[in-house]
Structure formats: structure tokens, C-alpha cells
């Protein structure tokens, strides 16, 4: 599954399969993390229309962590230990993700040196809007 070194070249672009972030996907994500008891007050921006509107959103929004998790897993699947041991991401969550949105992760290799590859990364929704943008790095040297 990991990219061979020959595939890591400047300009290479990678695109993930689409990820439907609906209520079922959000529930699965919650079941895969450990949250403190009562972390989320009842009626919060993730599950309540009024709370979401007070915070400035049109509807309840998905947790930003889930979008980060999706792009990080995409890179981990694609690059394996080059990412998991010495890799890095730095991202901004630029637009809310609403339940039912379909997300696609994209990565483009923009720099290479002896030890590291630099990538531009983003996650788009089905309307072509960027919901996450940032950079990532991979280790190129042997583990």
C-alpha cells in the first residue's frame, strides 16, 4: 500500500476515494475515540440546530478532528512508515463540514530534499469547496 520511492516525485498528485461524512460515519468516529465524560454539553454545535446557529453555523457541523483524521489516514495508507515515523501535518480547518458532505483528500508533492518530501494537502467537499488546507512532510531516509 505504501508508495515506492520512485513514486515520490515533485508534482505527483494523489487523490483519495470519496468519504461520506454522514451521521453514521460521525457515530462510528465517536465510537473510535476516547472522550472525557460530559465533554460535550447537551445541545452542542455537533448535534443541535440552535447551538450551531448561535456559534455561527447554518446547521450542526461534524467534528474538525474527523476531517483531520481522514486526510491523515489517507497519507498513512499511501506512505506507510515514511509518514508514521517522521512525518508531519499542519492544517487549517477553513470551512465547516456538514453531515452528509462527501470529502475527498488531495495531496501534491511540492518539494524534495535528501531526507524529506514536502506536500500540499487539502480536503474538498462535494461542492468543490476546501474544508481543510495545509502542508505535510514525509521522511525519505531509511527507518
Amino acid at each position, binding site marked *: 500500500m505504501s508508495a515506492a520511492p520512485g513514486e515520490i516525485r515533485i508534482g505527483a498528485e494523489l487523490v483519495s476515494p470519496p468519504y461520506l461524512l454522514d451521521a453514521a460515519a460521525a457515530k462510528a468516529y465517536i465510537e473510535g475515540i476516547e472522550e472525557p465524560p460530559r465533554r460535550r454539553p447537551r445541545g452542542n454545535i455537533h448535534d443541535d440546530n440552535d447551538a450551531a446557529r448561535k456559534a455561527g453555523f447554518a446547521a450542526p457541523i461534524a467534528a474538525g478532528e474527523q476531517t483531520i483524521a481522514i486526510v491523515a489516514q489517507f497519507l498513512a495508507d499511501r506512505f*506507510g512508515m515514511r509518514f508514521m515515523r517522521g512525518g508531519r501535518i499542519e492544517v487549517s480547518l477553513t470551512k465547516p463540514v456538514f453531515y452528509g458532505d462527501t470529502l475527498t483528500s488531495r495531496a501534491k508533492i511540492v518539494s524534495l530534499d535528501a531526507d524529506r518530501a514536502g506536500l500540499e494537502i487539502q480536503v474538498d467537499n462535494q461542492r468543490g469547496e476546501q474544508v481543510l488546507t495545509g502542508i505535510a512532510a514525509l521522511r525519505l531516509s531509511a527507518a
Partner: protein
Amino acid sequence: MSEDTRLPMCAENLHEGMRLGPIYYLVTAEQARAFADAVKAASPDFIPGAHNPEAIVSPTMRLQDYALLIAAHLKGGKGGVHAKHWCEFHEPMRVGQAVKSEGKITATYRKRSKFYFTLEYESRDAATGRLLVRQAITSVLLNEKGEMR
């Protein structure tokens, strides 16, 4: 029952230099499997099983440690909106590993009337001290009315 001495989660109680944690936990196969399913991990390396009992876990499975660190010291609040995040992956976590996580508030500021804070935190093998992940979350704190200001 002991008294809850945690401070309320609000801008006034978040200060640069404030240390949070440590917390300790064991990385379980159940969580690793559930998280890998949730993020639709494609590589079998992330799926624990009889053939892979010490599977590596998805890179951000413990990103949520920031919430546990906060909850260990602060209570209540209306939550926040995740704005930025960075992660450095030094060594993958593995199923069965005991982990220690701790953090520190490294920035608090107001921008366009919103209150932001940054929490840097790191996770280490609890037995050896080896660094696994270092990361930071920047979040907009919702006020007591649930608004971003």
C-alpha cells in the same frame, strides 16, 4: 465522594504556560479497530487481528487526548471550534502500548473578538519515555452563550 476542584472552562481560566496532565492509558485493539473502521483505513497494518496483534494505530487516533487533558483540569463550558492543528509523528503507537500524554497551553489571544487558545501536547511510551506524537490544537472557545466571541 471527593469535591470537584476543577476550574470552569472559560477564557479567564486559560493561561499561557498552564500545564495539563499527565494522563495515562493503554492502547486497545478494540479502539484501534473501531477507529480504523471509522476512517476507512485501507492498509491492513492498521487492523489488529490474530495475524497482527501489535498493529500500529491510525495516526490521529489519540488526537482527542487534548480533550482528556482539558477535562482533567477544567470543567463545563460550551465547547470550542477546531481551527488549526499540527502533528509530528515520531513513532507509531501500537496496540498494547501504555502511553503517557501531557500538554501545555502555549498561546491565548483574541482576534476579531474571538478567543483562541493553543494547547501543545505530546504522547510518550509510558515505560520507556520514547516520544510517539507531538501535536498542537488551536481552538476558538465558545463563550457561556455558545457564541464564538
